């Protein structure tokens, strides 16, 4: 009898220890960091071109506009929202700047107008999901379709040139040899970290996502908080579109669309719970770097770029599984 109990107890104890580890608040970020370091080590061994300052900065530059959108999407998902229209907004922004400049509008005014439009789209997303209580997945999927559709209509589906003196530097210049887009991304992450962990508004984000009804009943402006976060996400989409246009010297109506999945994957992989209430921007940043490093490393190893869609999908599904396991670990 005693032996059966012991063997029965020994087998699940390893599993239980794993679950207890998952339940720790820092477990997600720690695991990501380890995974990132392993990834760097593996690619360094496999490719002589991988581990050097130039390539590392190149990875940073490649992921900067994706990271921007993922950074802003993180507090939104924590608060219980979701924005699938963010990449479409990036596309429309580039198109708008290009068209407005073509009409003789000064480029920075054009950027300002594009940002204002993005903010309006964010407000619309926010109002639909909070006041009308529509499902954010459906609402922003619809918005994505509308926004990318408009961008296609405006351009006839063509990519427009965006070579404007005094503009393209935000995509191509460096400050202290660090690419400007990378600086913008890191500053955004840092600013959001400050807001989310050190301010009253940040506390409202976690409270609203953790338990919206309880938050409402203690007089927290849940709806306003979520609407503001939709606006921030839309603005990040617009800034991402601006940077991408400046980097490429061209504005495609669907320039960032293929990266929507990367943005969502990074947020979830970064440990933000799809159920809301839990997550951090640092987790998202690590996840963005991991996804960018995977892409870069696989390219250096001459793996077809089509395979990179597969790896991204696998990583996303692993991340969601881990989120589910973590929920279970916390539930017990």
């Amino acid at each position: 009898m005693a032996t059966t109990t012991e063997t029965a107890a020994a087998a699940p104890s390893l599993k239980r220890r794993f679950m207890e580890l998952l339940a720790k608040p820092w477990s997600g970020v720690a695991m990501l960091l380890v995974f990132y370091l392993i990834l760097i080590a593996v690619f360094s061994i496999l490719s002589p071109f991988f581990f050097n300052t130039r390539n590392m900065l190149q990875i940073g530059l490649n992921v900067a506009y994706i990271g921007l959108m993922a950074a802003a999407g993180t507090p939104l998902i924590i608060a219980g929202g979701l924005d699938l229209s963010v990449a479409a907004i990036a596309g429309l922004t580039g198109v708008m700047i290009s068209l407005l400049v073509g009409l003789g509008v000064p480029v920075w005014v054009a950027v300002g107008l594009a940002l204002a439009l993005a903010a309006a789209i964010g407000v619309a997303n926010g109002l639909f999901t909070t006041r009308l209580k529509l499902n954010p997945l459906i609402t922003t999927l619809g918005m994505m379709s509308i926004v990318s559709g408009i961008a296609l209509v405006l351009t006839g589906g063509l990519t427009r040139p965006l070579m404007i003196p005094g503009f393209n530097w935000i995509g191509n210049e460096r400050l202290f040899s660090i690419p400007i887009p990378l600086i913008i991304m890191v500053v955004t992450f840092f600013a959001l970290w400050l807001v989310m962990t050190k301010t009253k508004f940040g506390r409202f984000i976690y409270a609203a996502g953790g338990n919206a009804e309880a938050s409402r009943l203690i007089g927290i402006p849940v709806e306003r908080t979520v609407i503001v976060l939709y606006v921030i996400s839309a603005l990040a989409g617009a800034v991402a579109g601006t940077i991408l246009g400046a980097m490429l010297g061209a504005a495609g109506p669907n320039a960032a669309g293929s990266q929507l999945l990367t943005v969502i994957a990074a947020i979830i992989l970064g440990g933000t719970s799809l159920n809301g209430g839990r997550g951090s921007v640092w987790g998202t940043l690590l996840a963005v770097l991991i996804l960018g490093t995977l892409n870069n490393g696989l390219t250096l190893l001459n793996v077809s770029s089509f395979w990179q869609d597969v790896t991204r999908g696998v990583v996303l599904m692993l991340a969601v599984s881990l989120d589910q396991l973590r929920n279970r670990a916390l539930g017990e």
Partner: protein
Amino acid sequence: MSSTARLSMRGIDKSFGGVPVLSNVELTLEAGEVVALLGSNGAGKSTLVKILTGLYSRDAGTVEVDGQAVVFGKPADAIAAGVKLLPQEISVMPDLSVGENILLGDLPMKPGFGFKQVDYKTIHIRATELLAQLGFEALDTHQDVKRLSVAEQRIVEIARAIAGQARILIMDEPTAALTEQEAELLFAIIRRLKEQRVSVVYISHYMSEVFEISDRIVVLRDGRNAGDFVTATTNKAEVLAAMLGATAGDLYPTEPPPPPGTDVLKVEGFGVRGKIADVSFAVRSGEILGIFGLVGSGVEVLGRALYGAVHSERSGQVTLDGRPYRPSTPQHGKEAGIGFVAAERKKEGIIADLTVRENIALPFQSRFTRGLFVSTEAETGHAQNWIRDLGIRTRGPEQKLRTLSGGNQQKVCLARWLVEGVKLLILEEPTRGVDIGARREIYGKLRELTAKGYAVIILSSDVEEVAGISDRSLVLDRGRVVEQFPRGVTPAALMAATAETQTA
């Protein structure tokens, strides 16, 4: 006798991360016996039940069912051995019929068209038989379960357990969502189950229920057996003493109420469309006003309507400190100086993933913010004060609220409002699902707060609570005030007040 016991758990040990939760616990159950399992939150009840139902493995000890040693590695093992848990939340498939729900575990099949099909005819015949065993053959087995009342859904759930040949039923707070009459119905079913030699482990915070339905009362305290009583020969005081240990005393504070001050909230002809009509009362500072009502009486709406958390159209006059007061959002109520604690703690009260410190500071976050940033020091100091003052059992202000027991979570919900400027506390079901030790502490604290000038309104469907704590009490029925009582009212009188109108 013990060799033929239906269930015998002996020497059960269980610890989590080195902390013992159960030590040498024993629980026996004869065939057809109803044993109430009592204990404060954290006493080990739920851990014991999880071991019995195969959710946790035990560290040591033996479990025997009908004399057979068993090891439950997973919940399915326990179910196969005839051990079935009815959780507090009813789990039925709303879109399936009564019959399908009852026989879900083993749907009868018949051949036809070359493959096996569900045999609906047999389903309804067998489901009706099972319901007849419980005395509910009148329930139509063809209708969808979502059309049933909560109590009827409970019956379906119990019938399903019997269909699965359950011989040991564990009922966790089975009356939580039921009205008094529905609870009586449940007790009638339990008595029928007894006749059929089904054994029941009955878990409840309601002492009166336990005394009504159980044969034996087993008390756990701090993970150990603290008492085993034959219900017929014991009394509440004895059981309470076992639950609370040496410190047992009165559940409700005995000190006299402070002299009442001025009217804080005055309500005249207050109504909420479709829920409440023509309610008038006043509550003074230093006073605890109890409002008793059964589910559906309006007791679940009145408090939140006065706080500003109800959207429906309201009528009547409300004044707060002599000034007209018409809240339409919780923010209004809060800014006017009202604190509100909702009935459903998990759904409407706690923010489980935030810490104790963050939860306490949340409603008045601006007061803990210096310039742009939240001051963690200010929050910590404030939280530590109330952790000490309210006796919140936690490792410290940085512990996540989800890991605290129900009673301690409730104290955190209360602590949120104990800041300057709040003068009225509206508390819904303030001790629902709270263990007896914490209940006593909460009641004592409310008395203390009134001495400091707070006015308190308690809305509750727990008749003993309203009778025990109130300086004055109202009885709500069908949205109207039907009676008022001074301090010292008996639970029977409160209950009678609702019963009168219901038969009239």
